[in-house]
């Protein structure tokens, strides 16, 4: 029997190795509502300790834009037991790396540590959750730092005002109207007491996911998690805002922006559904058709054939409650925004009028498979994906099964989704023109 079994086992082994191995994990919820996800992998003696708080700029109120991100900066200032300026040093001293980022929907903190420092990482994150120190000194320092971040990333960069503008036009009257960096005026206005209220409201275990991946002993890890996080008091339930998105008013969805640029550029956005919807997967595939790889429709046409653009990009900017397909192109010397826009629109129309061919559809599948295999190649990436999938979809196992959601999409779905969402009532256009073309104000 064994002799017959062996080649069979080899065969199945081979066919398995051609697939991505499933990412094993376990998850549970503490009494205080903190959701915990653990993934064990002993390949390298490191561990990623991450906490996702389900709060982002969409939980802000008008007049306090940029608040959630500003707050993220404050949470490196220290705690009851960690002195000011020590947070980063303690992690550095263990040989770890740390950072955080804030989106419209969530704030994410992480440390990647040598695996023998897991307990330290848990202590640090629990200190942050239980009793972070928020004082005037920290607020005033980080206020200036955040303003420098805004200047460096946006105000001093050509074209970069497009994010704020495109969201402003696409989602008026909703918290997606502004972007996480916020406005200078609002950053200046934020008060210490408001930060303390924000902390009490959103930084509670029942609004957080602790996701850990790497070289861990799950039994020991759970013991420490209970020890450091178990006693953190539960907060009031956090209610996420419901967005009702009014249609864009046709005729008012276009802005001409004069900027410090040489090459004119066009930025076009179509509003699309929130990321958990099936149609969002189709939108993401349509973005691939348009601009993933040099053989994609827009790249081939604008950059190689018409040579009217130096670069063209299309990407799905997908958020929890809504999204946008953003296409952008920068004109080559001697070419105009009008040419670019005409070609992009023709390609968008083609998505609506003709189903995509068999070989092109297969190409999408292959690109998706490659992306799926390549994603989650690091412990930090796995921890983050698990937390995201749990928070937005309520299903951390999508880390293994999300590809099936793509595979369910048919060419007919793609055409239907293009017809449904890529319409004028959903459209925002920004024309970026050089300052030198600005009409004179005499």
């Amino acid at each position, binding site marked *: 029997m064994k002799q017959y079994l062996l080649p069979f086992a080899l065969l199945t082994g081979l066919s398995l190795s051609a697939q991505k191995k499933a990412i094993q994990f376990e998850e549970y919820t503490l009494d205080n509502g903190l959701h915990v996800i653990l993934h064990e992998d002993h390949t390298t003696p490191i561990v990623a300790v991450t906490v996702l708080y389900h709060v982002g700029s969409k939980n802000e109120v008008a007049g306090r834009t940029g608040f959630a991100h500003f707050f993220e900066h404050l949470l490196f200032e220290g705690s009851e037991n960690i002195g000011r300026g020590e947070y980063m040093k303690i992690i550095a001293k263990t040989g770890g790396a740390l950072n955080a980022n804030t989106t419209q929907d969530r704030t994410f903190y992480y440390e990647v540590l040598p695996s023998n420092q897991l307990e330290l990482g848990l202590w640090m994150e629990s200190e942050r959750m239980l009793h972070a120190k928020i004082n005037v000194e920290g607020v005033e320092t980080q206020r200036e*730092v955040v303003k420098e971040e805004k200047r460096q990333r946006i105000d001093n960069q050509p074209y970069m005002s497009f994010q704020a503008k495109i969201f402003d036009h696409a989602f008026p009257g909703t918290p997606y109207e502004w972007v996480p960096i916020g406005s200078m005026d609002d950053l200046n206005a934020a008060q210490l007491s408001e930060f303390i209220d924000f902390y009490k409201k959103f930084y509670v275990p029942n609004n957080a996911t602790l996701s850990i991946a790497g070289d861990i002993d799950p039994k020991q890890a759970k013991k420490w998690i209970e020890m450091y996080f178990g006693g953190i008091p539960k907060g009031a339930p956090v209610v996420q805002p419901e967005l009702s998105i009014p249609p864009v008013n046709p005729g008012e969805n276009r802005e001409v922006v004069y900027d410090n640029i040489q090459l004119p550029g066009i930025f076009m956005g179509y509003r699309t559904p929130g990321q958990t919807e099936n149609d969002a997967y189709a939108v993401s595939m349509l973005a691939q058709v348009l601009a993933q790889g040099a053989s994609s429709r827009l790249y081939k046409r604008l950059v190689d054939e018409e040579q009217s653009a130096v670069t063209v990009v299309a990407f799905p900017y997908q958020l929890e409650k809504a999204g946008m397909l953003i296409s952008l192109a920068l004109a080559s010397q001697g070419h105009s925004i009008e040419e670019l826009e005409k070609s992009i629109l023709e390609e968008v129309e083609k998505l609506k009028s003709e189903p995509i061919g068999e070989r092109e559809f297969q190409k999408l599948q292959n690109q998706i498979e490659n992306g799926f295999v390549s994603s989650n190649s690091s412990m930090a990436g796995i921890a983050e994906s698990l937390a995201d999938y749990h928070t937005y979809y309520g299903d951390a196992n999508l880390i293994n099964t999300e590809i099936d959601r793509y595979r369910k999409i048919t060419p007919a779905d793609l055409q239907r989704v293009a017809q449904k969402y890529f319409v004028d009532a959903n459209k925002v256009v920004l024309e970026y023109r050089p300052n030198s073309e600005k009409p004179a104000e005499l």
Partner: protein
Amino acid sequence: MVKRIKNDRIQIMKNFFASLALALFSLGLSAQVDRSVQPSAQKEKPLKIGKAEEFELDNGLKVIVVTNKKLPRVNYRLVMNRKPYDLGDKAGLDELLGGMLSEGTTTRTKAQLDEEIDFLGAQINVSANGASASGLSKSKEPILALMADMMLRPAFSPESFEKLVKQAKSGLDAEQEDPQAISDKLSRSVVFGSKHPYGQITTSESIDRIQLEDIKALYARNTSPNETYLAIVGDISKKEAKKLVEKYFGNWSGPVVEQPFPMYTGGAKQNTVHIVNRESSVQSNINITHAIALPEETDDHMAVRVMNQILGGGSSGRLFQNLREDKAYTYGAYSDVRADRYGAEFSATAEVRNEVTDSAIEQIMIELRKISEEPVSEDELRLAKESLKGAFGRSLENPATVANFALNVKRYNLAPDYYNNYLIKLEAITAADVQRVAKEYATGSGLQITAVGKARDIAKKLERFGPVSYYDFEGKPTDPPVEFPEGLTAEKVIEDYLLALGGRQKLGAYKELKLEREASIQGFSIKMTDAYVFPDKAYKSQDLGAFGKVEMIRKGSEYRMLQNGEAVPLEDADRNDLKNQLQWLPEMNYTAAQLKLTGIQEVRGQKAYLVEIKTGEETKVDFFDATTGLKLRTQMSETGPDGKDMVQNIDYLDYKLYDGLLLPELIAVPMGPMNAELKLTKASVNKGVDRKVFDR
């Protein structure tokens, strides 16, 4: 004994109640955690550095294989170990060659190539000095086949070349406004200079000098298995790798590559300041940098890493802690030391708001001085070592790291056990080592302090750091930028001029005007007459006596020109020229799009604003007195027969009132060594125009 037992029981009871109370009142805040104590580390696990296997093809191509089956992926990286190219005045040639390698092969058009790569879901990038490719391991063969085809059989089509040249120039246009790109060009240019390949900056002009033949020539002398490595990482065995590499690179042949370039160690002896003025900047991109002698294999490399970590290696570095966490000048401040046998450099960088640019530079200089003058504390040394050790450990998560280690050992002649001994060597670094290398590599003999920002706001305050020079966005030296008063525009200068003459309303109300001027040059007399009946009649004559007479006439929409009384046939261009010449005050009709404020200069001891005026194809510059607003000079330049620009000035002097109208009494036209001076002999305002002249 009994007593003791009882006591123990009481003790137990007390503990029970205590923990119960704690549990009740602190809502389960786990009693056994002492939060005030930082948890200590568990037993350290040793780092395992994976194994790299190697083989060499007959043609000399050296192959490194790291088998890692964790994910069904494969990654290829081809590295041609080449010295930097001295491209002379053809900077950008290597980048264009890289681009041409993605433009199709002798067997595949670009469209076919792109389609095949995308269909595999793969990525392939090629450059002049190598290539990288990645994708699913089930496609390991077609991916390598495509990469080899691109590298070894490029099509080099003229159409692609033309396209890439156009794209490159558009790309350079875009970079003009990118402060980081400008800062990189500036520092490369001032640190290495145009004689060194690293200081050769790609410009539109350098791109225009490149021919397709240059690209083919560079390809021919550069592309070779000699001194070339292929690193393969992923779900692939050495045996499979060998078979594939033999198949696709076995027949590759090429020349023996040239010998290395001499090491560049810089030459600056004093600190200098270099500024690119970017009027729209709300931040300054600061880079304090200089060239150092630090080849990759030097023993000092490890101490330099530790020094850099302490100074500016990350968020716990001194620069970050000082400039961001303490002073809030910036979002981040870092230092970097790049080892490179052909030209290594130290740099300390930060982007800071305009008003603290000098203070930020000051603080960076203080930190540089401090780290080279005082030993670092044991605590900082420990922190830096642990950070570097941690980074080394984390890097091993990526299977490509092991291949890179093997590659580095070969490329830079490192000791074979360099990476196995990495942590031991790191541990051995002392505070004295750090101070020594800081002195040698961080402070150095002459720092180049570069800043891209709004010169008007920052430049003055940077003078204390060293002599200041200015550059354009491509790192070429330029004049210092002109500082115009706040709010001044070309339109305002023109309005001020019209105001000085009496204002638009008054000027527009004149009915007629006649001006007669005379000059005498070497005994010849010249008479000029200008006559206007507003709004649409004008007459100008230049009477050079024996040399003849020229008359220009406008009557309504009709334009004529007479030479010695005979009508001259006019073409459209001539008619446009006449239209311009027959205006009394063209300033009344300028549009903002025609005007540009270009400078401040002295004219005859008066400060003047320069306004460039475009009319159709013609461009002239008018100079206006900054105080009185009056026009002092008109400057036109033309390309002379020898190809050089010839500048022609017309100066306006001695403004006087004639019937309430301000006019220059003298118009001076420098002609070679002498001036032709036209004197206003008679000005008739609102009278004296003989209507007959318009019918000549």
